């Protein structure tokens, strides 16, 4: 089975762009966190694609680390969202304009 490398890279690029658009145009902070997950996934596709192309496992190891860091990031991010909601009653990024209250 042969998958053209360029098509994998185009897929990764498209997913990354969708993630960036999501971060830029949405107000809901939870959707923004989801878009960041999409960006990390797009990077991961490239890692695995090149790992497969050069028959070298390093890319897949980096993929595992990438997923681990995504999990840590989302755990802390959602904890911040909950703490913020408890204090400010909002999940809208436009209304999050204070570092301290």
């Amino acid at each position: 089975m042969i998958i053209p490398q360029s098509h994998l890279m185009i897929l990764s690029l498209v997913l990354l762009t969708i993630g960036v658009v999501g971060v830029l145009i949405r107000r809901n902070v939870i959707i923004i966190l989801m878009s960041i997950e999409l960006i990390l996934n797009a990077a991961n596709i490239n890692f695995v694609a090149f790992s497969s192309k050069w028959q070298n496992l390093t890319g897949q190891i980096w993929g595992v680390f990438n997923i681990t860091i995504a999990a840590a990031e989302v755990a802390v991010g959602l904890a911040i969202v909950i703490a913020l909601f408890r204090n400010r009653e909002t999940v809208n990024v436009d209304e999050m304009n204070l570092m301290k209250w």
Partner: protein
Amino acid sequence: MDWGLVLFYFFAALAVVGGVMMITRKNAVHSAVYLVLTFVSVAGIYILLGADFLFAVQVLVYAGGIVVLFLFVIMLVNLEESRRLSGGKLHLAASAVLTCLLFGMLATLFGRVAVGQPSVAAPLGEGNLQLMGIALFRDYMLPFEVVSLLLLVAMIGAIVLGRPRA
């Protein structure tokens, strides 16, 4: 007819559709469900590329863990439907310009890197799990331990942040 290639395009289309739907839905729960679609499609692409272990991790951690976490938080913060996408026209125009710029830059860069050779998924597919285990616990021992420490720190941080203030 190469069924692997057909499957790749199928999964790729599904992933892109899931992503677009995710960022355009008003209801955050719907977004989370479309996010699952994208994650599972990406997992399918991993298995086409011979990365069995990453396929399992993707399904377990992303589709299983992270999305459930998202759903819990969505239920917890009890969202009112956010009525519109984002702020003023200037904001949208600047976003569009910046995104096009980023896309163009990366496409140019990728165009220089991607030189012809197709990727083949043969030998790495055999005993991928065993090879990953050997690599993780021999060559990447230190990074592995550091990452586990990072997870511990993130867990403690999440608990501290999520705790109600005394």
